[in-house]
């Protein structure tokens, strides 16, 4: 294998692994938060608006970790700096 094949293979593999591992934790956390919010709304329907708003804000906070992983994998596939550098170096 020459080095550009190695770069391509490692980039694609790492992108998949990144989004796979990086979305497990936020998914579990958001599921727990959602379950807690549902039971809280069931107990206190009057507070539904406050609970929903806080839930959304919290979900956004948790979600951002998964989005970091997503952005990293997108960069690896579509805007890989090493890839561009290598293409420039070989002049192809």
């Amino acid at each position, binding site marked *: 294998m020459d080095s550009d094949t190695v770069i391509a293979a490692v980039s694609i593999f790492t992108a998949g692994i990144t989004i796979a591992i990086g979305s497990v934790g936020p998914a579990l956390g958001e599921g727990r938060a959602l379950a807690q919010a549902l039971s809280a709304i069931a107990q206190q329907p009057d507070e539904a608006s*406050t609970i929903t*708003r*806080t839930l*959304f804000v919290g979900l*956004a*906070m948790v979600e951002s970790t998964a*989005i970091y992983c*997503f*952005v990293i994998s997108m960069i690896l596939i*579509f805007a890989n700096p090493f890839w561009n550098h290598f293409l420039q170096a070989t002049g192809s």
Partner: protein
Amino acid sequence: MNISPDVPLWQWEWIILNRTILFTWLVMAILVIGSWFITRRLTSGPRISRGQNLLEVLVMGLRNQIREVSQQEPGPYMPFVGTLFLFIVVSNILSIVPGYDAPTSSISTTAALATCVFVAVPIYGIAHQGLPGYLKQYIKPSVFMLPFNIIGEFSRTLALAVRLYGNIMSGSVIGAILLGFVPLFVPILMQAFGLLTGMIQAYIFAVLAMVYIASATQNGQGPTEQQDTENTDSDTTSTHTTTS
């Protein structure tokens, strides 16, 4: 395959017009011209026009949300937070139009919006409790937390920008990929889901901006906790409406 709509359309000397700038101006024009036309014929009578009704619903909803989040009167925050919300909502909703790229799917736009929030938080905080009071927040639990508070200031701005960008960009990228090998129906479902995501992200962006501003204006206590022990000697002019 582009993951950003920052592709140049037209170039004259050193001025580059790319798709992001074009659609940003389009969204701004829609907001400004629409508001201008609707506010020409405002009435307080029993029969109001549809546009006035829409704007009234929007303004009242925004004011109520700001009041609930910040526990203060929404007056000074309404222009900033409301503009953020409306701009993001319109630019996300228009993404169902073919050929349109949401400006928010470019990291440039979201970074600019997050920078606006980053600048607005100290301005509101200093205007509300003066420079010493605002700076005291950075050593709030103890002086050892100073570097972490400063890092948090930057990291939450980065998170604001990347969250909005990642959500909207992922929607458009997934739609484009699906269009490649699935006929008709699945991309439509993804677009509908993207509409929902866009609305939620706009709401979250505005609410988080409001939460950051409110925490900067409330003597370092969060908008949801109400410790009346420290609040009595604060020289805040706002009326804290406790909803307990």
